[in-house]
């Protein structure tokens, strides 16, 4: 297992949001985390990434317990987080944002290669290379955030709701990019509300409701599950 989350409890202040959440993700998997608004999906992602220290439980990445490790250290050990809020450097250009994404790489040739790679993935970013991130459209910002998260050669990415607020064809573009990355060996944990599409793209999924994992299994099975069909697919 590349990422192991065991009995994770997390929340904000005195408020507990997650109750004994456990996840296992193997190397090269494309796993989805699905659930209604406010279920705590983003809280799971923040806890794993290191932005939000968990209250209890253990998070293991690549054999190392990373519970109280800073987000920056996790990033340097190959766990990249692409947040819902994107956290772009709005006063910097696309190129500068991407440079910052690769700032931890010692090998500058590798950074150059990664830049070519993300421009191939999202040609639109290359066209706007010296535009400020704060002036980009919603879809372009998402692409930039994903591209920035890939610049550091991660072994695993945590992607939080990349389709939120995007036009359908842009969503497809983003999902196709994620699938392509997964085929090249990148492990992905994807949080989504777009359930139909997510279950088609991912290999396995967890369903989170009110801070608890209520269902898990291969995506192809979940898509035919009664609970899932009733609540999420509306059929």
């Amino acid at each position, binding site marked *: 297992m590349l990422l192991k989350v065991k009995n994770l409890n997390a929340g904000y202040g005195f408020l507990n949001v997650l109750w004994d959440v456990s996840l296992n993700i193997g190397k090269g998997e494309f796993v989805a985390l699905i659930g209604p608004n406010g279920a705590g999906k983003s809280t799971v992602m923040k806890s794993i*990434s*290191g*932005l939000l220290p968990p209250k209890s439980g253990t998070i293991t990445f690549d054999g190392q317990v990373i519970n109280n490790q*800073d*987000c*920056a*250290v996790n*990033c*340097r050990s190959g766990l*990249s*987080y*692409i*947040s819902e*809020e*994107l*956290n*772009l*450097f*709005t*006063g*910097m250009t696309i190129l*500068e944002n991407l*440079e*910052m*994404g690769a*700032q*931890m790489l010692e090998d500058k040739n590798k950074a150059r290669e990664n830049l070519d790679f993300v421009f191939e993935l999202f040609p639109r970013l290359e066209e706007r290379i010296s535009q400020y991130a704060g002036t980009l459209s919603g879809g372009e910002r998402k692409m930039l955030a994903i591209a*920035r*998260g890939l*610049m*550091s050669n991660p072994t695993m990415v945590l992607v939080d709701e990349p389709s939120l607020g995007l036009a359908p064809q842009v969503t497809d573009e983003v999902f196709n990019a994620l699938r392509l990355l997964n085929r090249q060996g990148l492990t992905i944990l994807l949080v989504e509300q777009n359930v139909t599409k997510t279950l088609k793209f991912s290999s396995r999924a967890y369903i989170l409701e009110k801070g608890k994992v209520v269902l898990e299994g291969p995506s192809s099975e979940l898509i035919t599950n009664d609970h899932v069909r009733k609540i999420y697919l509306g059929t």
Partner: protein
Amino acid sequence: MNNSRSIKAVEWLKSSGGITVTCTILVALAVSIHKGPYVLVNTLVTGGMWALMAIGVSLLFGVMNISNFAHGEYFMIGSLTAYYIMHPLKEYLLETPNSFLAFITPVLGIAGATLAGVIAGILTDKLIFAQLRKRNREGWLLNCFLITIGLSIILINLHMLIFGNTFKGVVNYWDVPSLALGDVYVSVDRVVVFFIAMLAILFFWYLMMYTTLGKKIRAVAQDENGARMVGIPVNRVYSTTFALACGFAALAGGSLLFMFPSYPTVGIAPLYNSWFIIILVGFGNVAGAVPGGFMIALFQVVTRTYMGEGWENVIPMFLISAILIFKPYGIFETKVRSVWEQ
């Protein structure tokens, strides 16, 4: 293309920033003609240093959301260090003249002052603000405000306790004849100090715009969590920011020792000046601090020349109140940008 650029230039001239800058230049020229060019020289010498002070305060606020009311004390640390390096060397030189040592003494003093400021800045971050960051960030602005006020009082009193309540200054840096620019004589000290300020500003601008370190500082300022997400060691960037800001303040203190001898409260006027500048040009506007520094310096020199000693803090105070009422974002209309407001 050319046309649109000239339209933009005209529009800028008509904006509050343009009007103020133009007026400043006109006033500077008029006063130098009326009272002699020394007004201009004094403005240039102090203005650059006030700009450096303001850049530091602006940087600390922009990157860390700390409004540093102890910034003047780093100026004081700089002037004190420069004094204790230069004074003994100058005493020694009186007995055993040595032209190389005489040349190098002010250089050592100013470099030593800067180094002391850098070290003091790093210590301040590591011992105080890093500890505060480890706890929660609730009430951060108010906490930092109180901490820096307390730090200022402690440092002023430490100076009094250890080094006494006396003026510790040097008369000049280099014992060489003044430079003649036409019929105007300007001491070498002043010229050098002006160039030190310009070089420091240039260094800062290059650092922020083109180096990885500068980009990291900007990244942390724009989005701290974003910076952590790309693996930037945020705590180290904070210490570096403190080192830069306090280093600049101490550089100003060391460089202006011949005009402002070191004493416990020597930092208060420079602190006021940096706040004047920041309110004038807008919070977080680092580039604006440079014209702002010269404007405030000119303003003070002019008030001192025409109204007398002591008025130079009263009149800017009125100006600041007026700006806060009519132009709360400063003359360049900068929006407040900080870590928490992105």
